[in-house]
């Protein structure tokens, strides 16, 4: 008679051999408890664009791995997690030591998690809640708790041998329209984030990425001029700086962006600026070649150049309605739109792209690679005393270059009609290209000593149109503030231009100036006064302690220039008396 354990061991050995013969190798711990391995590959369908950016090409769908995502094994009966792992760079996963003969389910979460330092934390969530609005009272759930996208398998039995399950997130396209769930979309977004972070890690293995939420929904639509994230009315795809979040269009009747990798990478570029470098952009709509506020132009141009580097593709395709040829594109290689200059995002984008790429074209006969660009962005440019503009970037970059590379930078600046060489500085003191806006542009930083004196600055919106974007050249003024003594300061901004009431008078007939004061070199916002629209209060407030040894900058604007409902007779030019007075 054999001992009980011996017989069981023999049985397990036989099972093991049989399974080995089948290719599946269940394991035994020697104590008689068998386990199996659940493994497989997770992937998603990616839809490339047609030639010329004329819509998406569903005949050329590529199956790509879901990289770095969390893969969970779920107990099908209880819904509890049995185990989790992370998919590899090829989309494979393997979950060992799983109990045989139980019903389970695989779930791939649309998230990238690495809690190490350096790490990352990306989640793709659904911002849309049917029937709800941002304006609801009580408020809808916070954005960070909205539903996370996940790809789920059907339930299956772990059986008695190792089991392989391959999951694919499909587009839901039936040849004519989306008729099935659009499972691929969240994973396409996730993969663009993965690619983008890997690009940066290729130059800085220690790059640590702050949490990023990517919000997408089939109901994310341009909307009707309102902005309501919960209702999916997001205006367009963009980056919401206050929440470190991307918002991405998904309305198949109007415009989808989940497969427009360049568009998503561009917005990820804004995230990069925000969390690893610096942006002082006020955002807003922008058209290629427009003459924009210096901080807006640099932010958009940098994001475009970075997206092109990440994608290793200078052409930015933006498709519209799936199944149609709607879409357009542009390239940062060789094209030029609008007046060249520091105010043109295309000038910025082509300049930075040409610093990076190895193809020669006019003015571009070399390459710096990404490293100096990256080091400048996360280093001195981020800590510049001035706002983050092409001037701060180029000045700080130039200071780090050898003579040959500095000459390349100068040639590109010259090509883009931006001051170069020894005349280049973060304050644009020698810049003369005014974008054709003959007043209220220079000096780009109005010098001001905070001794209680009054300086009169003006803004104008001659470049803006119906929409009142408020982000063109001339619509904002920057101040460079010298502080005579360590003190708190009383800030006053008083409109000096008359604003006559319109035929249908209301509060919007009146000026509404705003001012924001920054301590640039430590990336600190000191104070702001964006007063309520309806009351038309002009900013009057006291700063915290300002130090005489430091330089401060301020951003002054007329908010009516971005108020789409302002009176159409509102003056095109507004002036303010600005003063900072030491407190008694």
């Amino acid at each position, binding site marked *: 008679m054999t001992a009980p354990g011996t017989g069981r061991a023999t049985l397990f050995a036989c099972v093991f051999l049989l399974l080995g013969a089948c290719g599946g190798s269940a394991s035994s711990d020697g104590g008689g408890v068998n386990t199996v391995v659940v493994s497989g590959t997770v992937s998603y369908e990616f839809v490339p664009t047609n030639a010329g950016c004329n819509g998406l090409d569903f005949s050329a769908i590529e199956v790509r791995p879901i990289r770095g995502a969390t893969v969970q094994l*779920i107990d099908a009966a209880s*819904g509890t997690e049995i185990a989790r792992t992370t998919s590899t760079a090829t989309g494979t996963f393997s979950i060992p030591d799983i109990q045989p003969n139980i019903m389970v389910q*695989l779930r791939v*979460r649309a998230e990238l998690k690495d809690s190490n330092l350096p790490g990352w934390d990306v989640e793709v969530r*659904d911002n849309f809640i049917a029937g709800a609005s*941002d*304006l609801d009272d009580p*408020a809808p759930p916070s*954005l960070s*708790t909205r*539903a*996370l*996208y*996940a*790809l*789920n*398998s059907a339930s299956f039995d772990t059986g008695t041998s190792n089991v392989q*399950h*391959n999951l694919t*997130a499909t587009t*839901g396209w039936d040849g004519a329209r989306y008729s099935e*769930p659009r499972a691929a979309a*969240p994973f396409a977004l996730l993969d663009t984030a993965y690619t983008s972070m890997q690009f940066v890690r290729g130059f800085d293995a220690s790059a640590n990425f702050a949490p990023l939420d990517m919000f997408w929904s089939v109901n994310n639509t341009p*909307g*009707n*001029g*309102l902005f*309501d994230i919960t209702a999916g009315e997001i205006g367009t*795809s*963009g*980056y919401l*700086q*206050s*929440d470190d979040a991307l918002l991405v269009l998904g*309305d198949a*009747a109007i415009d989808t962006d989940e497969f427009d990798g360049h*568009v998503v990478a561009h*917005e990820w570029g804004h995230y990069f600026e925000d969390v690893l470098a610096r942006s002082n952009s*006020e*955002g*807003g709509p922008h*058209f290629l070649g427009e003459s924009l506020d210096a901080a807006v132009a640099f*932010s958009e141009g940098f*994001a*475009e150049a970075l997206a092109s580097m990440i994608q290793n593709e200078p052409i*930015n395709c933006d498709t*519209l*309605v799936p199944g149609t040829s*709607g*879409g357009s594109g542009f390239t940062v290689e060789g*094209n030029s*739109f609008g007046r060249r200059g520091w105010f043109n995002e295309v000038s910025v984008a082509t300049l930075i792209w040409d610093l990076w790429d190895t193809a020669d074209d006019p003015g571009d006969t070399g390459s710096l690679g990404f490293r100096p660009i990256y080091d400048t962005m996360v280093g001195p440019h981020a800590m510049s005393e001035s706002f983050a503009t092409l001037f701060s970037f180029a000045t700080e970059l130039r200071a780090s270059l050898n003579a040959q590379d500095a000459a390349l930078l100068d040639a590109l600046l010259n090509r883009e009609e931006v001051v170069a060489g020894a005349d280049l500085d973060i304050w644009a003191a020698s810049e003369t290209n005014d974008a054709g806006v003959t007043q209220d542009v220079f000096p780009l930083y109005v010098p001001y000593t905070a001794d209680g004196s009054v300086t009169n600055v003006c803004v104008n919106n001659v470049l803006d*149109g*119906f929409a009142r*974007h*408020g982000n063109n050249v001339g619509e904002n003024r920057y101040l460079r503030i010298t502080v005579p003594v360590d003190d708190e300061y009383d800030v006053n901004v008083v409109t000096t231009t008359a604003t006559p009431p319109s035929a249908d008078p209301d509060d919007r007939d009146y000026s509404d100036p705003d001012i924001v004061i920054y301590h640039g070199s430590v990336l600190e916002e000191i104070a*702001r006064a964006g007063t309520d629209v309806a009351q038309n209060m002009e900013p009057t407030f006291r700063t915290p302690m300002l130090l005489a040894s430091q330089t401060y900058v301020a951003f002054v604007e007329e*908010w009516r220039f971005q108020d*789409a*409902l302002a009176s159409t007779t509102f003056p095109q030019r507004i002036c303010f008396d600005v003063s900072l007075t030491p407190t008694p």
Partner: protein
Amino acid sequence: MNRTTLLILALSVLAACGDGTDTDAGQAADQDIKSDGASAMTAKPQGPVSIEYRIIGTPILGQPLAIDLEVTSTIGPQAITLSYRVNDSTAMELMESQPAETTIAASSAEGPSLQQIRLVPLREGRLFLNVSASVDIDGGTVSTSMAIPIEVGTAVRQIEENGVITTDEDGNPIHSLPASEN
């Protein structure tokens, strides 16, 4: 930053880019929100032709509707081809006298060109007119495209379904999408 602040800021930024100037009182109230540059929302790049629009009056089912367009090319004095398209022919139609495509001749004058489109809404709801403005450049054509939303009557917006909302093992919401398996 609390959520209310966030939404106000976000609203303000997009209110600022709301090209339509529908004079609906509710919309005006919602747009009575303040800007905040530090909490900006960026927007994806548009093509080299700026298109801004203004809907004239309140859209009414079956009644002709005019939309003013302000079109500005950043490329300089070049012809701009404007095309208008309605994806859903049951939603609205261009008026007979309204061509689906028109060309704005090259002009040396800077500043926008003004165009007016006339159409007729055929049903209630949020309808869209697609406008595309194209210019020729070396090596091809580049375009700016936009969908102009037109709210007709009180019909609610049609909501699309995509998967189901469940909860995960921790009770957090999950938007569950089915996998294709092999």
